[in-house]
């Protein structure tokens, strides 16, 4: 759950940067405007699963209502079997 300071930061940042609608907050307390970078910042287990959750902080209205959405991420490594890159010489 985001702290009061984190909500205040998100509120202030989104007010100053109207082109963004949400900020993503990782367990380390870092904010991201892009979900891919936020997901990339999550630590991984040895089998490539993501550990931890992202929180999505929206604009003032949603923060006031306590509407802080959590985003669970259980993705596989990009180099999982289905996504292995093919070497050029293959």
């Amino acid at each position: 759950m985001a702290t009061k300071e984190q909500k205040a930061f998100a509120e202030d940042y989104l007010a100053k940067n109207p082109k963004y609608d949400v900020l993503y907050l990782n367990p380390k307390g870092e904010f991201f405007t892009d979900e891919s970078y936020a997901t990339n910042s999550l630590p991984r287990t040895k089998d490539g699963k993501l550990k931890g959750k992202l929180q999505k902080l929206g604009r003032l209205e949603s923060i006031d209502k306590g509407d802080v959405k959590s985003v669970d991420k259980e993705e596989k490594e990009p180099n999982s079997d289905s996504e292995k890159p093919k070497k050029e010489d293959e």
Partner: protein
Amino acid sequence: MPELENGLWAIQYLEPQLLEDFRNYRDDFMGVLKGPNPAAIGEDGILFNKLINNVDFKVNANTDFTPVPMTGKKGLTLWDKLDTTPTLCTDKELRGMAFDKEAAIRVEHTNTFKIGVRDYVLNKLAPSENKAGMPVIRTTGAEVDGRKRLTYEDLLGFYNRLTKLNLNDKTAWHMVLSDDHRTDLMADRASTNHYRDVEINRETGEVSRFFKLRFFENNDTPYYGADSKLKSLGSTPGANDQKASIFLYAPNTVYHLESVKVLYKDMMTDTRNKDPQSEFRLHTYGLCDKKQEHGFGAIISANA
């Protein structure tokens, strides 16, 4: 010059000039990074082995010897997916355009890819925090713009910590200097007549060397938090976060990109849209990392 408006001029008999985009395209330091042995590149990533040297040395041995096996450790650097976001271009946009917009879009993708890979690489090579083998220091100079300047003494202290790391290839000590620290060194050089081994190239004006440290200037370097821990790539800098200069010992780096795929959907195959559109994107797999957590470092501006 009046304020620029959204849109592009499409005038038949004039050629509106395409304005320069002022972005930081510098990635010259990447030339010193080491490529992997092709035989070590696998489907999961690049594999490394390290022998743990347990060989001892005796003088005037007075007991019999007992041989012991030499063990090792193994490591794996995983692939990352690297992409530019797709751009679409319609037939309607191209009509009457004085320049080849599709070609210009390709150039912009190449530029963005280059900048993205540069930032990705620097973030991977920056030490996560101060630890044995990876010194991270804070500056102690005069306060300026909410931070403390880098002083010559700070740099000497950092250099002293590097020399203790036994980094054998003395030609492979490189530092990516942040914009603020570059200015700090120039200010220091200008404010004293005392001896300073900070070389400023007279032809280019670049800060290029400090004893064995070779400098590369860059306006975009990773951020560290107030706790001196590296901020994740793409995170939004907070009020107490500061940019750092990054030291890297080239032989301990690994950097490799697969061939970049140019993903292009031709508008000639778009039979449905009323304004046929093409799409363009760059995509590849690549990796960059520290081979060992040894021989990296950072100088962070202290908060004022």
